[in-house]
């Protein structure tokens, strides 16, 4: 692979490129998925409850 025959170095190259690609793909996939989880959202339980009831109200329960 790439003119290299040593298995250990090939594994290092695969991990190197694989980790970089995984990081890129992960970042793109998760680009917007986690929403705005701010301090207020984390600390106030009401937000969670509101979110739940809002979805239920908007979408009429389960999908």
């Amino acid at each position, binding site marked *: 692979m*790439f*003119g290299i025959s040593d298995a250990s170095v090939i594994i290092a190259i695969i991990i190197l490129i694989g980790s970089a690609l995984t990081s890129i793909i992960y*970042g793109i996939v998760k680009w*917007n998925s*986690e929403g705005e989880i701010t301090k207020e959202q984390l600390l106030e339980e009401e937000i969670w409850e509101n979110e739940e009831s809002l979805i239920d109200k908007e979408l009429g329960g389960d999908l």
Partner: protein
Amino acid sequence: MSFEILIPVVIIYLGIIGFLGIKGYKGTKNSSDYLLGGRNINPFVMALSYGATFISTSAIVGFGGIASQFGLSLLWLPALNILFGIFIAFIFYGKRTRAMGLHLESHTFPEFLGKRVNSKFVQVFTGVIIFLSMPLYTAAVLIGGAKILEGLLNVPFEYSVAFFSILVAIYVIMGGIKGVMYTDALQGVLMFLGMLFLLVATYVKLGGISSSHQQLAELSQSEIFPQGLKALGSNGWTASPELGSPLWWIIFSSLVFGVGIGVLAQPQLCVRYMTVRSNKELNRAVIIGGIFILITVATPYIVGALSNVYFYNEQGLSAVQATAAINGKANVDEVIPLFISTAMPKWFGYAFMLVIISAAMSTLSSQFHAIGTAISRDVYSAISKRSHDKYGVLISRIGVIISILITVILSFNMGSGIIARATAIFFGIMASGFLAPYTAALFWKRLTRVGMIAGMISGIAVVCFGFLFLHSKEAAVFGICRAITGENSLFGTSVGQFIDPLVFALPVSTLSTIIFSLMTQVENKNTVDECFALVKKQKRLIKKSNQKTLNKIKFKFFSKKGKKL
């Protein structure tokens, strides 16, 4: 080098740095701004700052030179740097550190550990350890940068040290972490572009990727391959050394294990997770971090190894022999500068100067900031019980000034031979003392104050013993083992002298953390429960947020089709 071209370029560069420093200063109103950038830093700035801090001059010039000797087996190091230093660090460590740090209202790495187990001792102890050990590493980076300026521009060493110290001091003292991160981001971009060009130009010059690697493999069988390396277990420049040989232990225990995994417990890097507003920013930062580390860390190792092909084709010599042909003395630190000045276009020599200055300054600024906040917030404020909020910025600035003075004094008194050793000692102490307790703090509810203290002290004690009595490289510098036993290492001349002390210290620290935690009770159960509930709740919120987004998409999709939900 032509000063007519270089001086205007450097002046423009410094002007932009000054502008960013002022921008940081104007945005710094309180302690939170000075220490964490108001927890509202742009994810790309954060990722570039993380990467630029990570990569110092010694990583580019020093490790690149080492790669000219050890070859492509060193690619294990950037591989682990991305896997652990970016992916695992941001996704697993970063998110929990940010959420828990926010809840605990911690602003520094020592403060985070201390508040996690409700212990002032942990905070002060960690601050003292950082204050005592990090200046060694900082001085090593400062000396490395100054040596490059001295070598390329003939600027006297003392003036080079003054140049770096004063320049970095101005924007760190004024702008705090904002000044540091804004300038880091610019410097990170320059480093990335410089390294990318260097990588592509090297492969083009040597006939392509596969061709250049094949030439390097063939050279490993020729007479220019160092016989000394073969005796240590080397299998050539494109292969890993014999398993268990001295060279294998040097590469995999010190460089790959020590630096590759040790990066998870670097205080100046961990604090960056807390500078962003939400997990979304961390997810986005992963993209930049992955690309940045891939290019900036892998390039010096690849170019360093391949420089042997270039110098053999041009002069019939290996890279190290080529440095000896010019200076009369072989020096691995001169391989990369020599390769750039002879193999690359002239204009790139000037650009590379900026890359080197950027690499040195970005690491130095974060180190000064970390040492300064350790001594001011984690030691002084914690012991004196003064409110850090009231005089926070002033105290932190005084701490940064103290850290710069100590580093400058050290850099004038440390020999150049201790640069790599100082870096190894710092990484060893941080990983041995803090990696296990920090990991437990994030992932194990059962961690206790006693467990954390035991893990820290045992790890640091074992790694210090290792540096003084086991690992011959450091033990020879201190000379205590030789004075007592007549040998540089208690392992004598056996292969054990090459094993990095971290290999012994990390398991001891991990076991101590676990055993002492299981023997004692969690004292701040409510806080711990809240911290972990927060992480759990965060996951629920994320899941719910994802579901909500999905529902909206489904809603729009089915609505357009005129179908009922």
